[in-house]
């Protein structure tokens, strides 16, 4: 391999080198990892081997991992100095997303628990 060019040390971790091979391989690795995580997600959702109540949490973790793969290998979020602004904006976006989702689900679940008929009765009505 003649890939040991001098600029190898000038590339931030995660950033593809400036060659056709290196850039393509970044997308290929990303595609492979994303396909693998997708396959694991579908397998986890359909297998009977795992503890039922934990499956939903596991699926969410797998989804977050796959989003990370997409960010690094497809969108090329890196630790390089050019990317500081992108990373900070992403961090703020993630904060807002977590606030909106966790806050809504938390509060609405409490409201649902404190109001209306108990779940057992609603379920009876839903079966007809």
């Amino acid at each position, binding site marked *: 391999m003649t890939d040991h060019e001098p600029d190898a040390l000038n590339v931030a971790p995660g950033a*593809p080198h400036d060659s056709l091979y290196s850039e393509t391989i970044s997308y290929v690795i990303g595609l492979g990892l994303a*396909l693998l995580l997708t396959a694991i997600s579908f397998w986890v959702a359909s297998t009977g081997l795992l503890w039922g109540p934990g499956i939903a949490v596991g699926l969410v973790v797998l989804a977050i991992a796959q989003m990370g793969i997409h960010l690094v290998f497809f*969108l*090329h*979020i890196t630790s390089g100095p050019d990317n*500081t602004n992108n990373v900070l904006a992403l961090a703020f976006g993630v904060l807002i997303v977590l606030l909106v989702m966790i806050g809504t689900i938390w509060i*609405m679940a409490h409201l649902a628990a404190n109001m209306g008929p108990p779940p057992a009765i609603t379920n009876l009505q839903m079966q007809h």
Partner: protein
Amino acid sequence: MTAGTEAPTVGLTHGASEDTGLGNRGPQSKSIVVPYGFWLFVLSDIVLFSALFATYASLVHATDGGPVTNQLFDRRLVAIETVALLLSSFTCGLAMIAAKRHHMTGTQAWLVVTGLLGLVFLSIELYEFTSMIAEGAGPQRSAFLSAFFTLVGCHGVHVTAGLLWIGTMMAQIWAKGFRQDIVRRLLCLSIFWHALDIIWVAIFTIVYLIGTLP
């Protein structure tokens, strides 16, 4: 390469910058500022989707005696949709690699493949929507179905917009060549398309896989 002053860019990474982040050298070049601004738009779009996800999660059990998630969703269709969108994200990246090297045939070919895979995704989604509505599980049936069609439909609208954008960009590259402003637009398109795939990961996990757990 062209005689321009801007280094080429892939994704959000500026390809060959000499900037060490240690000094003030005045405003950044457009090939950094434009993707950054578009990245801010994409993040705010993701915040919009987070509100739709929160709505869906709050209403998923409000079925009003109508069909529930387990009766509606077909995992095989979702798997095909997922693979199609993932592959289209991959080919979109290959189109960007070709565009960086001003390779006309390669760019156009990979953009066509990207668009066709997006079309496969969209047709399957439309098929799913029409068959659900035909079964009487339309958006007016229950709060759960309203939230479902809003969330997944909003993503579908984004994919449609992305497909139109791919078509426009192919025409622009064809007519005007790899001018710097055209390549920047193409870069924004690739960021948009990759972000759609990220949102789809959340949708197929939260809506379809968790929704069809036994």
